[in-house]
């Protein structure tokens, strides 16, 4: 596992918890194990780590759930966003890639926890396309407009004050 210099920021949906890292590890991965599935309510977790000493929690404090003896799952207690997987005996914190401000920069390189991979995983890339948010009929456009007008999600960059 290699570490490299990179300025990275991220946080939860509501913006109560934000983090910054100055270095990253090149370990972006998918974990299908049942514990990771549950932690994020999804079919897998996607994680990428930063060295512990390269991380600053720039706003708020994550809440922790100890899923087993020495593994903490970090989340925002105000909005629920899963933020990290951390072996508390290790040298790094694995951030959930979706909580990063730029998840597109971290394609996973390997799958783990394959004993729990859902049988329909292979269907994902070929699912029909239902369009973009708000596309389709007038009702869809109206609710997308209403969401944009009252969006409580923190933007994908650091902010001086929030909310």
């Amino acid at each position, binding site marked *: 596992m290699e570490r490299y210099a990179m300025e990275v920021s991220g946080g*939860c*949906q509501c913006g109560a918890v934000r983090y910054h890292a100055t270095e990253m590890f090149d370990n972006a*991965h*998918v*974990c299908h*194990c049942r*514990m990771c*599935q*549950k*932690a*994020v*309510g*999804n*079919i*897998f977790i*996607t994680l990428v780590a930063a060295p512990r000493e390269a991380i600053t929690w720039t706003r708020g404090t994550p*809440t922790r*759930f100890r*899923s*087993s*003896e020495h*593994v903490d*799952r970090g*989340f*925002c*207690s*105000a*909005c*629920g*966003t*899963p933020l990290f997987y951390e072996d508390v005996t290790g040298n790094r914190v694995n951030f959930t890639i*979706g*909580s990063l401000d730029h998840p*597109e920069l971290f*394609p*996973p*390189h*390997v*799958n*783990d*926890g*394959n004993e729990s991979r*859902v049988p329909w995983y*292979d269907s*994902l*890339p070929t*699912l*029909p*396309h*239902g369009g*973009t*948010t708000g596309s389709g009929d007038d009702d869809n456009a109206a*609710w997308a407009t209403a*969401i944009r*007008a*009252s*969006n*409580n*999600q923190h933007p*994908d960059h650091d902010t001086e004050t929030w909310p």
Partner: protein
Amino acid sequence: MSTLLTGGCQCGAVRYALDQQPFNVHVCHCRMCQKAVGGPFAVICPVLKSAFRVTRGTISYFHSSDIARRGFCAACGTPLLFDYPHVEDIGVLVGTLDEPDRAPPENQYGNESRVAWFSGLLDVPGERPTYADNPDMLHRISSTNHQHPDHDTATWPQK
């Protein structure tokens, strides 16, 4: 009504039952769903609210906008629900089902935010099970696992 599917959060403080097979299960790539689950997308399983019952604990909510809210467990953080309070169905997050196998998605939405690497997911290598190379670590996790089992329990945490 009778229970067809069950599910809940990682720690087991919140459990729910569905009396109906989810319909129009879909992947949502939108940036709001990405953030809510900390991943590249969410998989949402709609059921009628009349077919959704909380059987243990209380769901916490974050209003991600005026018209939608996200349900989660405040004790362990597991994202559980996507809900438009004014509509008749509610979206359960597939990974919280005790049997996520049983709700395959049929469609994908929010494609404006789909990560470029989504289309390459099947090319990602790796077939190993959890800690296949480290049985000691696997034992440490499995012997101290605080996750609720994938079925209803009479009491939790178990004595």
